[in-house]
């Protein structure tokens, strides 16, 4: 029996170093510019595909890196310290696109799409949300019907990360009207499927170098074998996928939090007021102590959830990690900006971008309120 340890294993430590080096050398130099220009980091994503960062948990049989959830979370964290936009582009491909396909897909669909996603440079997306159906995902209106050996999909999805650049999307649609969440199915839709169209890119507050669009399905046709799991099981697949992927958003939040702390510390040591660096003022010190303590709590919760991915409590642990880490990261960015004073409000300083970027973390992949509902359900049943 293993003994309790808080240490990362060698593979995890090596991967952390590798991703950190890549992020600092290749991603950081252009982060601010891409944010300003709303520019999607195509070249960087291509390099990440070569490094195996887009199919981290995909089995080797499908050209993936077959790593565990914790290793994946560490990669997301390191990317997010440097560029949260790159981190979400990568995490969506790994955990809400590859993962449900590898877990629930037919051999045919796995062979058709996983190697391309894992190692071929393609990225993916996940289409759950609709204009009228956000937190209440079960109320979706997109429909799909089987015609011969094809699914025919009609409807629209909103705010889909990687929308304009994704090659494959896991799309949720109603296949048996009148059966509520039991009538929803998950289907893989390639972007070149007939009847598939991408909307314009959204103008967002943050994550500007990530791509978010609507998806339109107009009698969009895909092979019958592109159904994930069974007909009617899509809602459960979506929820299982989110249970799994929330660890990624928790890790993204931890990365942002880490960076906010670093920026706050270096600014506080340099900025002089009343004749001393502001780091000498106790109020500033205490903000830094709180940020560091909450970071330790968030990171530990996140790694714990990631390392317990197969336990019966996995869903609750992932929700706890996502809830806590995202809210703590928001507080940390708020305090770090405060420590920067007026400079923090100017886009010349990195904290201004982080402050915008971090805001999404308590919203997507289930708002904080939804996480609390998930956790409470576990507690009161």
């Amino acid at each position, binding site marked *: 029996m293993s003994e309790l340890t*808080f240490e*990362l294993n060698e593979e995890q430590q090596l991967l952390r170093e590798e991703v950190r080096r890549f992020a600092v050398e290749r991603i950081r130099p252009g982060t601010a510019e891409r944010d300003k220009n709303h520019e999607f980091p195509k070249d960087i994503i291509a390099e990440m595909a070569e490094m195996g960062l887009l199919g981290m948990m995909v089995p080797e049989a499908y050209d993936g890196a077959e790593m565990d959830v914790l290793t994946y979370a560490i990669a997301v964290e390191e990317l997010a310290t440097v560029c949260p936009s790159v981190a979400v582009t990568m995490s969506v491909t790994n955990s809400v696109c590859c993962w449900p396909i590898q877990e629930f897909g037919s051999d045919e669909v796995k062979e058709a799409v996983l190697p391309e996603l894992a190692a071929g440079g393609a990225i993916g997306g996940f289409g759950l949300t609709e204009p009228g159906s956000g937190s209440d995902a079960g109320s979706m209106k997109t429909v799909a019907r089987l015609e011969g050996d094809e699914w025919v999909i009609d409807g629209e999805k909103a705010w889909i990360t990687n929308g304009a650049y994704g090659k494959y999307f896991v799309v949720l649609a109603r296949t048996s009207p009148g059966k509520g969440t039991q009538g929803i199915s998950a289907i893989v839709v390639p972007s070149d499927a007939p009847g598939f169209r991408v909307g314009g890119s959204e103008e967002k507050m943050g994550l500007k170098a990530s791509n978010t669009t609507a998806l339109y399905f107009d009698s969009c046709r895909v092979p019958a074998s592109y159904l994930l799991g069974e007909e009617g099981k899509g809602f459960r697949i979506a929820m299982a996928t989110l249970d799994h992927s929330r660890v990624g958003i928790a890790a993204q939040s931890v990365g942002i939090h880490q960076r906010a702390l670093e920026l706050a510390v270096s600014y506080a040591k340099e900025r002089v007021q009343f004749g001393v660096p502001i780091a000498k003022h106790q109020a500033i010190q205490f903000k830094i*102590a709180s940020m560091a*303590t909450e970071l*330790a709590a968030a990171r*530990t919760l996140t790694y*714990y959830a990631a390392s317990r991915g197969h336990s019966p409590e996995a869903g609750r642990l992932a929700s706890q990690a996502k809830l806590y880490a995202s809210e703590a990261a928001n507080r940390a960015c708020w305090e770090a900006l405060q420590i920067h004073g007026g400079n923090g409000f100017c886009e010349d300083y990195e904290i201004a971008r982080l402050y915008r970027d971090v805001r999404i973390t308590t919203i997507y992949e289930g708002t904080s309120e939804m996480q*609390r509902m998930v956790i*409470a359900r576990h507690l009161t049943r």
Partner: protein
Amino acid sequence: MYIQLNDEQKMLRDEVRRFADEVVKPIAKETDEKGIFPTDVIRQAGEMGLTGVAVPEEWGGAGMDVISYCIVVEEISRVCGSTGVILSVNNSLVCDPIMKFGNDEQKELFLKPLAAGEKLGCFALTEPGAGSDAAALRTTARRDGDDYVLNGNKVFITNGTHADVAIVFASVDLALGHKGITAFLVPAEIDGYSHGIHEYKLGVNGSGTTELAFEDMRIPAAFRLGEEGEGFKVAMSTLDGGRIGIASQAVGIAQGAFEEAVQYAKEREQFGKPISSFQAIQHYLADMSTELDAARLLTWKAAWTKMNRKRFTLEAAQAKLYSSEMAQRVTNLAVQIHGGYGYIREYNVERYFRDARITEIYEGTSEIQKMVIANWVLNQG
């Protein structure tokens, strides 16, 4: 990263939980209300090995690890915060420094009976004029031949009313500041030693807090713990370990309150349904469980770091700061969930709420923890 208890730790947890529920809990209310020191409970705890959990068996202890020690303090505090701190002090503020700084004769004479629960110890650092600023203590120790003669007063000493042995901090030369501070092992029956009656407190009211007075108290030089002038180091390094105990106490108190809150929320009906069906109550419970998990993980992380690394000052301070602040929030919400009944002495949450308050004050206030953490992050990180 592998965070699960091993079989031995799980067995210990089950055993201590049974003892807590069957023996400690039934008298917890009276212990608090009347301020009765739970002598009989502590005797039984000693027989179970709970008074020297991490002390090696050859020195009278149970020979377990620091995580096991956390489990003991948490499980006991889950039903009685007073008993929790009594054990925490004996284990980590008394046995620990003798183990670390004592010589074999001192271990034979003092550690063995203290670890085995035949004697009870206390830790006497605080003075009327020296709280957070412990180095400002005024108790003096004058060398006189083979003895030291101690004069001075200590306040707020846990276990003070019942201790057989006190670790006393005194200065051999006040002009040297903290470099003059020296630690002594003092048998309570020695001439010149006296203690007051117990302080009537807001919480942990059964923990025998009192003042100590030393009047021309003659101590053999052989009872000096560590070197002359080494006392401040003894005190600070001991408190690093003690903070893991107080963090565990805070987790235990919060866990007790949380369990009562979950049960009450399921039973109490208003507006025709259990209050647990109301979203506000559900979200309180979700936040409570999330913070509890975070605090327990930080505490175990500090314990693990103590076992595996040289320095654990940062981890212990973060665990103590976070857990104690968490305990305020969790016990507060537990009272809120109980409504008016939460304010009534018949219900346990009222006691938990009061007991939690001290965890942010002793063994270094939250402000002192933040100073430690900020110093680490700003200057050593």
